[in-house]
Protein backbone atom coordinates (compact mmCIF):
# COMPACT_ATOMS: atom_id res chain seq x y z
CA UNK A 1 0.00 0.00 0.00
CA UNK A 2 2.77 2.45 1.00
CA UNK A 3 4.86 1.63 -2.10
CA UNK A 4 1.90 2.04 -4.42
CA UNK A 5 1.02 5.38 -2.77
CA UNK A 6 4.58 6.60 -3.13
CA UNK A 7 4.76 5.67 -6.82
CA UNK A 8 1.38 7.16 -7.73
CA UNK A 9 2.04 10.35 -5.72
CA UNK A 10 5.40 10.80 -7.47
CA UNK A 11 3.81 10.34 -10.89
CA UNK A 12 1.07 12.88 -10.10
CA UNK A 13 3.53 15.44 -8.70
CA UNK A 14 5.78 15.02 -11.74
CA UNK A 15 2.78 15.59 -14.03
CA UNK A 16 1.87 18.76 -12.12
CA UNK A 17 5.46 20.15 -12.19
CA UNK A 18 6.69 22.66 -14.75
CA UNK A 19 8.91 21.27 -17.50
CA UNK A 20 12.51 22.54 -17.38
CA UNK A 21 13.61 24.89 -20.16
CA UNK A 22 16.93 26.33 -21.32
CA UNK A 23 17.20 30.08 -20.70
CA UNK A 24 18.16 32.42 -23.56
CA UNK A 25 17.93 35.98 -24.84
CA UNK A 26 17.21 36.48 -28.53
CA UNK A 27 17.72 39.77 -30.32
CA UNK A 28 18.06 41.44 -33.69
CA UNK A 29 18.50 44.82 -35.37
CA UNK A 30 15.47 45.81 -37.40
CA UNK A 31 15.36 48.27 -40.28
CA UNK A 32 12.54 50.86 -40.68
CA UNK A 33 10.70 48.27 -42.80
CA UNK A 34 10.58 45.97 -39.75
CA UNK A 35 12.92 43.46 -41.38
CA UNK A 36 16.38 42.12 -40.58
CA UNK A 37 17.65 43.52 -43.90
CA UNK A 38 17.39 46.62 -46.10
CA UNK A 39 18.99 48.80 -43.44
CA UNK A 40 19.90 51.57 -45.88
CA UNK A 41 16.61 51.77 -47.79
CA UNK A 42 17.85 50.23 -51.02
CA UNK A 43 21.01 52.30 -51.61
CA UNK A 44 23.55 49.56 -50.90
CA UNK A 45 25.66 50.13 -47.81
CA UNK A 46 26.30 53.82 -48.47
CA UNK A 47 25.27 56.39 -45.90
CA UNK A 48 25.38 60.02 -46.90
CA UNK A 49 26.00 62.85 -44.47
CA UNK A 50 22.89 64.01 -42.57
CA UNK A 51 20.83 61.02 -43.69
CA UNK A 52 18.88 59.84 -40.64
CA UNK A 53 18.60 56.09 -40.20
CA UNK A 54 16.00 54.76 -37.83
CA UNK A 55 16.68 51.23 -36.69
CA UNK A 56 15.60 49.42 -33.58
CA UNK A 57 16.61 46.39 -31.57
CA UNK A 58 14.12 43.81 -30.48
CA UNK A 59 15.28 41.91 -27.42
CA UNK A 60 13.33 38.89 -26.16
CA UNK A 61 13.91 37.65 -22.64
CA UNK A 62 13.41 33.93 -22.08
CA UNK A 63 15.71 33.72 -19.06
CA UNK A 64 12.97 32.74 -16.60
CA UNK A 65 13.05 36.03 -14.70
CA UNK A 66 13.23 39.79 -15.32
CA UNK A 67 16.53 40.96 -16.85
CA UNK A 68 18.36 44.29 -16.83
CA UNK A 69 19.69 44.31 -20.38
CA UNK A 70 22.29 46.66 -21.82
CA UNK A 71 23.21 47.17 -25.46
CA UNK A 72 26.71 48.55 -26.10
CA UNK A 73 27.49 50.28 -29.42
CA UNK A 74 30.97 50.34 -30.94
CA UNK A 75 32.16 51.66 -34.27
CA UNK A 76 34.88 49.61 -35.93
CA UNK A 77 36.41 49.14 -39.36
CA UNK A 78 37.44 46.15 -41.48
CA UNK A 79 40.52 45.45 -39.33
CA UNK A 80 38.82 45.69 -35.93
CA UNK A 81 38.68 42.53 -33.85
CA UNK A 82 35.18 41.08 -33.55
CA UNK A 83 33.54 40.39 -30.23
CA UNK A 84 33.09 36.65 -29.72
CA UNK A 85 31.12 34.15 -27.65
CA UNK A 86 33.16 34.89 -24.53
CA UNK A 87 34.59 38.42 -24.82
CA UNK A 88 33.41 41.83 -26.05
CA UNK A 89 35.36 43.90 -28.60
CA UNK A 90 37.10 45.86 -25.85
CA UNK A 91 39.81 47.17 -28.20
CA UNK A 92 37.17 49.00 -30.24
CA UNK A 93 35.98 52.15 -28.45
CA UNK A 94 32.44 52.22 -27.13
CA UNK A 95 30.39 55.05 -28.65
CA UNK A 96 27.19 54.59 -26.68
CA UNK A 97 24.91 52.28 -24.78
CA UNK A 98 21.34 51.89 -23.71
CA UNK A 99 19.67 49.73 -21.10
CA UNK A 100 16.21 48.36 -20.41
CA UNK A 101 14.37 46.14 -17.92
CA UNK A 102 12.67 43.28 -19.72
CA UNK A 103 10.26 40.92 -17.92
CA UNK A 104 10.48 37.21 -18.67
CA UNK A 105 8.72 36.20 -21.87
CA UNK A 106 8.52 39.75 -23.19
CA UNK A 107 10.19 41.57 -26.08
CA UNK A 108 11.48 45.13 -25.76
CA UNK A 109 11.95 47.48 -28.71
CA UNK A 110 14.96 49.78 -28.28
CA UNK A 111 15.45 52.64 -30.71
CA UNK A 112 18.71 53.22 -32.53
CA UNK A 113 18.48 56.40 -34.59
CA UNK A 114 21.70 57.68 -36.09
CA UNK A 115 23.21 59.94 -38.70
CA UNK A 116 26.62 61.13 -39.85
CA UNK A 117 27.11 64.84 -39.11
CA UNK A 118 30.45 65.19 -40.84
CA UNK A 119 33.36 63.22 -42.24
CA UNK A 120 36.84 64.40 -41.26
CA UNK A 121 40.31 63.41 -42.44
CA UNK A 122 42.74 62.13 -39.81
CA UNK A 123 46.03 60.47 -40.76
CA UNK A 124 44.82 59.45 -44.20
CA UNK A 125 41.64 57.94 -42.76
CA UNK A 126 38.07 59.19 -42.66
CA UNK A 127 36.72 59.60 -39.14
CA UNK A 128 33.08 60.28 -38.35
CA UNK A 129 31.22 62.79 -36.26
CA UNK A 130 27.82 61.23 -35.63
CA UNK A 131 24.58 61.64 -33.75
CA UNK A 132 23.21 58.54 -32.04
CA UNK A 133 19.85 58.72 -30.26
CA UNK A 134 20.16 62.49 -29.99
CA UNK A 135 23.68 62.42 -28.58
CA UNK A 136 26.65 63.76 -30.53
CA UNK A 137 29.37 61.12 -30.82
CA UNK A 138 32.91 61.33 -32.16
CA UNK A 139 34.52 58.02 -32.97
CA UNK A 140 38.35 57.86 -33.08
CA UNK A 141 38.27 54.82 -35.38
CA UNK A 142 38.79 55.76 -39.03
CA UNK A 143 38.53 53.97 -42.31
CA UNK A 144 40.26 54.30 -45.68
CA UNK A 145 38.05 56.44 -47.97
CA UNK A 146 35.24 56.02 -45.44
CA UNK A 147 34.65 52.46 -46.64
CA UNK A 148 33.80 49.39 -44.55
CA UNK A 149 32.85 50.91 -41.25
CA UNK A 150 30.85 48.61 -39.06
CA UNK A 151 28.75 48.90 -35.95
CA UNK A 152 29.26 46.27 -33.29
CA UNK A 153 26.24 45.80 -31.05
CA UNK A 154 26.91 43.80 -27.91
CA UNK A 155 24.34 42.37 -25.51
CA UNK A 156 25.19 42.79 -21.83
CA UNK A 157 23.13 41.81 -18.78
CA UNK A 158 23.30 43.03 -15.21
CA UNK A 159 24.73 40.42 -12.88
CA UNK A 160 23.46 40.97 -9.35
CA UNK A 161 26.23 38.84 -7.83
CA UNK A 162 28.95 40.82 -9.59
CA UNK A 163 27.00 44.07 -9.09
CA UNK A 164 27.77 45.21 -12.64
CA UNK A 165 26.88 44.64 -16.27
CA UNK A 166 28.63 41.61 -17.77
CA UNK A 167 28.98 40.72 -21.44
CA UNK A 168 26.37 38.25 -22.69
CA UNK A 169 23.90 36.40 -20.51
CA UNK A 170 24.08 33.58 -17.97
CA UNK A 171 23.77 30.28 -19.80
CA UNK A 172 23.79 26.78 -18.32
CA UNK A 173 27.28 26.60 -16.77
CA UNK A 174 28.83 29.71 -18.34
CA UNK A 175 28.03 33.10 -19.85
CA UNK A 176 27.03 33.26 -23.50
CA UNK A 177 28.32 36.25 -25.46
CA UNK A 178 25.98 37.67 -28.06
CA UNK A 179 26.76 40.34 -30.63
CA UNK A 180 25.61 41.72 -33.99
CA UNK A 181 27.30 43.83 -36.64
CA UNK A 182 26.20 45.98 -39.58
CA UNK A 183 28.62 47.23 -42.23
CA UNK A 184 28.32 50.59 -43.97
CA UNK A 185 30.27 53.05 -46.11
CA UNK A 186 30.38 56.74 -45.30
CA UNK A 187 29.71 58.05 -48.78
Amino acid at each position, binding site marked *: *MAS*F*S*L*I*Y*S*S*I*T*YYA*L*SKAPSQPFIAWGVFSPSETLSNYFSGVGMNVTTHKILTWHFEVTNQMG*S*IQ*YVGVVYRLGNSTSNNPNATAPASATPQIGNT*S*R*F*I*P*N*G*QTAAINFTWSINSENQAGGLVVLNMTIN*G*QQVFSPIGSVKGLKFRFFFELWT*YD*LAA*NSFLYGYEGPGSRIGNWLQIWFNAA
Partner: protein
Amino acid sequence: MRFRQSAFLGTLLLLTFSISATTDNVSGQSTPIDIAQNKIVQAFQIVNQADLDGASPAAISQLASNLNLALSYEQSAIQLLPTNKTGSGVYASLSLNMSTTTAVQALNVASAARTQTLLSQLGDYSLAVASGLGSTLLVIEFHRVKNFVRRVRLRRLRLD
Protein backbone atom coordinates in the same frame (compact mmCIF):
# COMPACT_ATOMS: atom_id res chain seq x y z
CA MET B 1 -1.44 40.11 9.30
CA ARG B 2 0.08 40.09 5.82
CA PHE B 3 -0.63 43.81 5.47
CA ARG B 4 1.19 44.51 8.75
CA GLN B 5 4.17 42.48 7.58
CA SER B 6 4.28 44.30 4.22
CA ALA B 7 3.93 47.70 5.88
CA PHE B 8 6.76 46.85 8.26
CA LEU B 9 9.00 45.68 5.41
CA GLY B 10 8.13 48.77 3.36
CA THR B 11 8.95 51.10 6.26
CA LEU B 12 12.20 49.25 6.85
CA LEU B 13 13.14 49.62 3.19
CA LEU B 14 12.33 53.34 3.17
CA LEU B 15 14.44 53.83 6.29
CA THR B 16 17.32 51.91 4.71
CA PHE B 17 17.06 54.04 1.57
CA SER B 18 16.95 57.27 3.57
CA ILE B 19 19.96 56.28 5.65
CA SER B 20 21.98 55.14 2.64
CA ALA B 21 21.06 58.31 0.70
CA THR B 22 22.16 60.44 3.67
CA THR B 23 25.39 58.50 3.94
CA ASP B 24 26.01 59.00 0.21
CA ASN B 25 25.52 62.75 0.54
CA VAL B 26 27.69 63.01 3.63
CA SER B 27 30.57 61.24 1.95
CA GLY B 28 30.47 64.00 -0.71
CA GLN B 29 31.68 61.60 -3.40
CA SER B 30 28.40 60.39 -4.91
CA THR B 31 26.46 62.63 -7.25
CA PRO B 32 22.63 62.57 -7.32
CA ILE B 33 22.95 60.57 -10.54
CA ASP B 34 25.16 57.96 -8.84
CA ILE B 35 22.64 57.67 -6.01
CA ALA B 36 19.76 57.32 -8.50
CA GLN B 37 21.68 54.61 -10.38
CA ASN B 38 22.33 52.68 -7.16
CA LYS B 39 18.66 52.86 -6.20
CA ILE B 40 17.63 51.54 -9.61
CA VAL B 41 19.88 48.52 -9.09
CA GLN B 42 18.56 47.99 -5.54
CA ALA B 43 14.99 48.16 -6.83
CA PHE B 44 15.86 45.73 -9.63
CA GLN B 45 17.26 43.31 -7.03
CA ILE B 46 13.95 43.33 -5.13
CA VAL B 47 11.84 43.03 -8.30
CA ASN B 48 14.01 40.13 -9.43
CA GLN B 49 13.47 38.42 -6.07
CA ALA B 50 9.71 38.97 -6.37
CA ASP B 51 9.85 37.38 -9.83
CA LEU B 52 11.80 34.38 -8.54
CA ASP B 53 9.32 34.07 -5.66
CA GLY B 54 6.57 33.53 -8.23
CA ALA B 55 4.96 36.98 -8.63
CA SER B 56 2.44 37.18 -11.48
CA PRO B 57 3.73 38.25 -14.94
CA ALA B 58 1.32 41.23 -14.87
CA ALA B 59 2.76 42.48 -11.56
CA ILE B 60 6.35 42.06 -12.77
CA SER B 61 5.49 43.79 -16.04
CA GLN B 62 4.13 46.79 -14.12
CA LEU B 63 7.22 46.91 -11.89
CA ALA B 64 9.47 46.68 -14.97
CA SER B 65 7.62 49.64 -16.54
CA ASN B 66 8.29 51.66 -13.37
CA LEU B 67 11.95 50.70 -13.44
CA ASN B 68 12.18 51.72 -17.09
CA LEU B 69 10.63 55.06 -16.18
CA ALA B 70 13.24 55.48 -13.42
CA LEU B 71 15.91 54.66 -16.03
CA SER B 72 14.56 57.27 -18.47
CA TYR B 73 14.58 59.93 -15.70
CA GLU B 74 18.15 58.98 -14.92
CA GLN B 75 19.09 59.28 -18.61
CA SER B 76 17.51 62.74 -18.73
CA ALA B 77 19.52 63.69 -15.63
CA ILE B 78 22.74 62.58 -17.35
CA GLN B 79 21.90 64.43 -20.57
CA LEU B 80 21.05 67.66 -18.73
CA LEU B 81 24.08 67.60 -16.43
CA PRO B 82 26.52 69.58 -18.65
CA THR B 83 24.04 72.41 -19.36
CA ASN B 84 21.44 72.47 -16.57
CA LYS B 85 22.52 71.15 -13.18
CA THR B 86 19.23 72.05 -11.47
CA GLY B 87 17.19 70.24 -14.10
CA SER B 88 19.54 67.30 -13.88
CA GLY B 89 19.06 67.19 -10.11
CA VAL B 90 15.27 67.24 -10.51
CA TYR B 91 15.37 64.25 -12.88
CA ALA B 92 17.80 62.39 -10.61
CA SER B 93 15.37 62.96 -7.73
CA LEU B 94 12.42 61.76 -9.84
CA SER B 95 14.40 58.64 -10.71
CA LEU B 96 15.24 58.05 -7.04
CA ASN B 97 11.60 58.42 -5.96
CA MET B 98 10.40 56.10 -8.70
CA SER B 99 12.97 53.43 -7.77
CA THR B 100 12.05 53.68 -4.09
CA THR B 101 8.32 53.40 -4.80
CA THR B 102 8.94 50.46 -7.11
CA ALA B 103 11.05 48.70 -4.49
CA VAL B 104 8.29 49.05 -1.87
CA GLN B 105 5.69 47.76 -4.36
CA ALA B 106 8.00 44.86 -5.23
CA LEU B 107 8.30 43.91 -1.54
CA ASN B 108 4.51 43.70 -1.26
CA VAL B 109 4.27 41.74 -4.50
CA ALA B 110 7.01 39.34 -3.31
CA SER B 111 5.24 38.77 0.00
CA ALA B 112 1.94 37.98 -1.75
CA ALA B 113 3.75 35.76 -4.27
CA ARG B 114 5.45 33.73 -1.55
CA THR B 115 2.09 33.08 0.15
CA GLN B 116 0.49 32.16 -3.16
CA THR B 117 3.37 29.84 -4.08
CA LEU B 118 3.14 28.12 -0.69
CA LEU B 119 -0.61 27.58 -1.08
CA SER B 120 -0.16 26.38 -4.63
CA GLN B 121 2.55 23.91 -3.57
CA LEU B 122 0.38 22.68 -0.71
CA GLY B 123 -2.44 22.18 -3.21
CA ASP B 124 -0.16 20.26 -5.57
CA TYR B 125 1.19 18.04 -2.79
CA SER B 126 -2.33 17.37 -1.46
CA LEU B 127 -3.61 16.52 -4.91
CA ALA B 128 -0.63 14.25 -5.52
CA VAL B 129 -1.07 12.42 -2.22
CA ALA B 130 -4.87 12.11 -2.67
CA SER B 131 -4.44 10.81 -6.23
CA GLY B 132 -1.79 8.38 -5.04
CA LEU B 133 -4.00 7.04 -2.26
CA GLY B 134 -7.01 6.85 -4.57
CA SER B 135 -5.09 5.00 -7.25
CA THR B 136 -3.60 2.60 -4.70
CA LEU B 137 -6.99 1.78 -3.21
CA LEU B 138 -8.39 1.22 -6.66
CA VAL B 139 -5.62 -1.24 -7.58
CA ILE B 140 -5.60 -3.10 -4.25
CA GLU B 141 -9.36 -3.29 -3.82
CA PHE B 142 -10.21 -3.81 -7.49
CA HIS B 143 -11.24 -7.44 -6.85
CA ARG B 144 -13.96 -6.20 -4.44
CA VAL B 145 -15.35 -3.95 -7.18
CA LYS B 146 -15.34 -6.89 -9.59
CA ASN B 147 -17.14 -9.07 -7.03
CA PHE B 148 -19.69 -6.36 -6.36
CA VAL B 149 -20.45 -5.96 -10.07
CA ARG B 150 -20.73 -9.74 -10.46
CA ARG B 151 -23.20 -9.95 -7.54
CA VAL B 152 -25.34 -7.16 -8.98
CA ARG B 153 -25.47 -8.94 -12.33
CA LEU B 154 -26.43 -12.25 -10.68
CA ARG B 155 -29.20 -10.57 -8.73
CA ARG B 156 -30.58 -9.06 -11.93
CA LEU B 157 -30.47 -12.43 -13.68
CA ARG B 158 -32.37 -14.08 -10.78
CA LEU B 159 -35.00 -11.37 -10.85
CA ASP B 160 -35.44 -11.87 -14.60
